[in-house]
């Protein structure tokens, strides 16, 4: 497993735990948007306050300061994985 995939899986596990999702990590698409106003295609994160908990858990897990992760990274799992992988590589 590449370091990118390790980060991606860990992010999915954190999302499953915080959002109390009843899904396995591999069944969550990395491209599903976190937020959506569409009632037909809801975003992964329906409770806006959850983002606070997610950013806090991510920072703890990857030994980062939460403010290091830009807001633009919180689009989907893919963008978040990219951002965290870059920060860890720097």
């Amino acid at each position: 497993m590449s370091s990118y995939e390790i980060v991606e899986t860990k992010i999915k596990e954190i999302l499953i735990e915080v959002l109390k999702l009843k899904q396995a990590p591999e069944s969550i698409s990395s491209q599903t948007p976190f937020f959506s106003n569409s009632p037909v295609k809801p975003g992964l994160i329906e409770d806006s306050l959850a983002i606070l908990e997610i950013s806090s858990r991510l920072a703890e897990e990857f030994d980062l300061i939460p403010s290091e992760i830009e807001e633009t990274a919180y689009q989907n799992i893919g963008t978040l994985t990219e951002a965290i992988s870059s920060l860890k590589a720097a």
Partner: protein
Amino acid sequence: MDRTALIDEIRQIGDYVSRREMGKMEKGITKDFNFVSASLSHFLPGLDQDEHPSFYLEMMRHRSLAVLHSDLPQLVHKMSVRKGGGPEKGQSPEDSRKAPFVPVVGAPMIYCGYHLGSYRAIIGYMVRENLNFGLLLDKRTFLEQGDAVRQSIQELRESTGKEVQFTLFNAEDPLSLVAISKWMRDSNPIVAYIDGNTGYGGLYNEKESLFMEMELFGHPIKCRKGIALLSYLMQVPIVPAISYFENQEDAPILEIHAPICPWNSRETKEQYMQRANQALFQILEEKLARYPSQWEAWLYVHKFIPARLLKEEALQAANDADAGMLCFNKKGFGLFKMGEKAYLFNRTNYSSFEIPPALFDILEELRGRHSFGYAEAGLSTGNLSTLIRKNILSHITPSAK
């Protein structure tokens, strides 16, 4: 503006607001009054319903004056800042009450304000003390009044000569929450209101997970979790800051209480949120008991009553009518107009129903005259029995007396 001119302006505004609101009442444009009155009956049942109109006028006067007070730089300068809470060891209650609060500069904090007194006083305080701050606004205020709020703060900055930095955040935008946490990580405080109105969708459409239940005067009330959750996750204290007027003609008072801190390692997130919000509501309750008409939130507090408490049935009318007479159930219902349309308002569950204007006139007259003989009611037998069955009209029979 000198004191005499200020007192004159305050009186003029008060007179104008009273005339405007009384004019609306005479025309039946009383939707807001009906909601406020229903909430007063719910939270402050000790306040006689007959006193609600004068309470409402007083509240509306305060609402206008709160804006005036906050926009006048000289009043921001004169605003008295006091330390809230009980006296410290060896300190008299009076000395404690007058002790100034010393702001902590360069530390992240969540200043929690309330819509009581001069609710913008906390903003004036941040500018006056040169504390950079972020202001959390609900989505509606952010979109509709954001520019006006920016302009108002900018003017305050210029008039006080302070170069304080500020930014506005939409509290309902999830990514704003990330931005807020960054803002605080940079050691900047934020200002948020615990008792603000809600966004476009209305509270009824919001997710229950965003709220927790607290008590206000012993009655359950929904409270947003956001402030306490932010405090817990960021490990940043909440500083309650409540404003009120001891006298309308004086500058507002801003009472700043001891911080509510999240760093008790044995406390769970839920336990902390419960403790923090209860402490915030307790401070509100104490001041509200003393200055009830200074709370603007009476206009929308009904949105925070848990749905399960909104009873289907209207309250029974008081048995105070004469035998064989009809009376309008004032405890259970209200009446108001919006444009040409007339509405019957259920005071126990805050629902409104459009009714024919002719029925509105009859019910309005029944309400005004307290009681009415059957023959005088001017209603068909069918309408009359429906109104009685639904408790909108009550009649007292000799045996029930």
